[in-house]
């Protein structure tokens, strides 16, 4: 066990003597949290509206002001021509075209059937869906207001309180702030990258320099060697998580409802998986380029299948199956539900056991693969 101390001494000296290291530890989390949390914002706002008003009536202007009053729409162009609207949409200048036909007010007040056409640009299907749903909601709202204001002069009475009103409440993220949802995921990404890249590069670097040969010719036990190599990055990644949480609290005031000790405990187990992965990669590669490439390859797949950017429920079934073998998926679940929902041990123990199993498996594999003798 004493030899582990000497390896730790050496590793920490080398890590902190490396000029690239402190920026990686302190600058990377800040940049990632700032950029990724904003860039990965899928909330649809400021949809560009093209307005065709062939009626030019008081009622049509009321409808327009409803749209302008909504945070989801922004009037960018208005024209009488349908062709102009289609050209604008083809150029991707507008997201939604709303066309009010001539005689809209007349027919509406006469209680005749009238139609408004809403066209959404569905190049981005999600955005198009939102645009059409939000547009319908604004129109429904407009209609409700109209009924209320003109109740006296209508020939029929709308059933009082009869229209079904769906009021939604967003649990765990009441303001529907996308950043609250993204930041825990970005934190997961951060510690994963730190853990996997730094650990795999570190050991392969010793191979490249030839110093690993010098260690292999000593009586150093390979479990001691591996422990000495993993502990520094484990500690750095845990520190990184704490640092990232502080940044997230300061910048985004993300909720931290669950027990933070549990959070760090579970993260510690997850990091064993990530570091074990890095270690395993380092045993099957000879150069830092190879290690970097393989780590990157694996991480990209894991990240896309993690539920960070795309909700797992929206993936095709085969991809959903694949996420079950992805450790990042479980860690993101842990961070999100612990921080945002306040989940405790009872809810998260399944993830814990899966990650623990993973940690044992991958580290066992790495130790088995690491050879002092070729």
């Amino acid at each position, binding site marked *: 066990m004493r030899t582990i101390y*000497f*390896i730790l*001494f050496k590793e920490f*000296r*080398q890590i902190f*003597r490396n000029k690239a290291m402190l920026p990686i530890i302190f600058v990377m989390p800040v940049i990632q949290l700032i950029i990724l949390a904003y860039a990965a914002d899928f909330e649809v706002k400021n949809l560009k509206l093209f307005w065709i008003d062939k009626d030019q009536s008081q009622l049509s202007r009321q409808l327009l002001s409803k749209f302008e009053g909504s945070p989801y729409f922004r009037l960018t162009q208005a024209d009488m021509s349908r062709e102009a609207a289609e050209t604008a949409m083809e150029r991707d200048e507008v997201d939604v075209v709303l066309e009010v036909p001539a005689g809209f007010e007349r027919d509406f007040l006469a209680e005749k059937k009238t139609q408004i056409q809403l066209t959404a640009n569905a190049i981005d299907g999600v955005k198009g869906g939102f645009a059409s749903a939000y547009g319908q909601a604004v129109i429904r709202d407009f209609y409700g207001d109209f009924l209320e204001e003109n109740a006296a002069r209508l020939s029929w009475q709308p059933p009082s309180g009869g229209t079904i009103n769906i009021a939604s409440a967003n649990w765990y993220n009441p303001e529907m702030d996308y950043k609250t949802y993204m930041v825990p995921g970005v934190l997961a990404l951060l510690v994963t990258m730190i853990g996997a890249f730094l650990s795999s590069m570190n050991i392969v670097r010793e191979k490249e320099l030839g110093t690993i040969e*010098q260690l292999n010719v*000593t*009586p150093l036990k390979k479990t001691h060697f591996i422990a000495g190599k993993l502990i520094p990055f484990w500690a750095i990644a845990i520190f990184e998580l704490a640092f990232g949480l502080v940044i997230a609290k300061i910048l985004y005031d993300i909720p931290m409802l669950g027990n933070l000790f549990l959070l760090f405990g579970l993260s510690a187990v997850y990091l064993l998986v990530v570091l074990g992965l890095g270690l395993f990669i380092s045993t099957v590669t000879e150069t830092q380029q190879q290690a970097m490439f393989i780590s990157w390859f694996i991480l990209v797949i894991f990240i896309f299948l993690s539920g960070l950017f795309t909700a797992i429920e929206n993936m095709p079934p085969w991809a959903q199956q694949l996420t079950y073998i992805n450790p990042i998926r479980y860690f993101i679940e842990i961070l999100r539900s612990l921080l945002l929902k306040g989940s405790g041990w009872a809810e998260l123990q399944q993830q814990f056991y899966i990650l623990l199993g993973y940690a044992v498996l991958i580290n066992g594999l790495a130790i088995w693969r690491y050879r002092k003798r070729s």
Partner: protein
Amino acid sequence: MENEFSIEVRDLTKMFGGFTAVDHISFEVRHGEIFGFLGANGAGKTTAIRMLCGLSLPTSGKAEVAGYDVFRKPEMVKRNIGYMSQKFSLYQDLTVSENIYFYGGIYGLKRKVIFQKTEELLEKLDLKHARNTLIRDIPLGWKQKLAFSVAILHDPQIVFLDEPTGGVDPITRRQFWDLIYEAAKAGVTIFVTTHYMDEAEYCNRISIMVDGRIEALGPPAELKTRFQSQDMDEVFVKLARG
């Protein structure tokens, strides 16, 4: 010690696929002897040395180093040997004293002993002023002397030196050999590979490897007589050309 030999090798062989890098070599090295292991590039020297140090698993044959079988007890072998390779074994981004501290610790020396040995060593190598200098900032000749001293820090029975003096001037090489003599006098067996034929003359006995086999073995003087040569260079060229 019951055994008079530090190293005993019988028919040691290493094959990489169909290529035989080391082909049934046999020799013994006595305690405290300086044994030169010569051969052209690719003759199999490094492969042989790696097998003896427990870095490479032999394909067949038998080898005992410091009384332990390299097949079955490689970790016991490692406790009793020092190793310095042509690639630099010291950490470039650690200081002189940190390197000594680290390797001393890995070999299980007590901290007090490490500090004491560090002082002795720095004194002997005249490196006291450079104790806190990073290895990458000190000259090559110093690095080699330091690497040798670190390789024998834990008082091994045998030290393996794989082309230890590559790339330095004759004076530094001479100083390096002074360190080797001093260690040999203290009873350490020296197993050294080299390209320099003048260095071969410093050895008690030498073996010359050609294409994975040992073609000649004996004291330098005897080999010169046997091959009717002026110096080791000539012996080497005669053997290598077949």
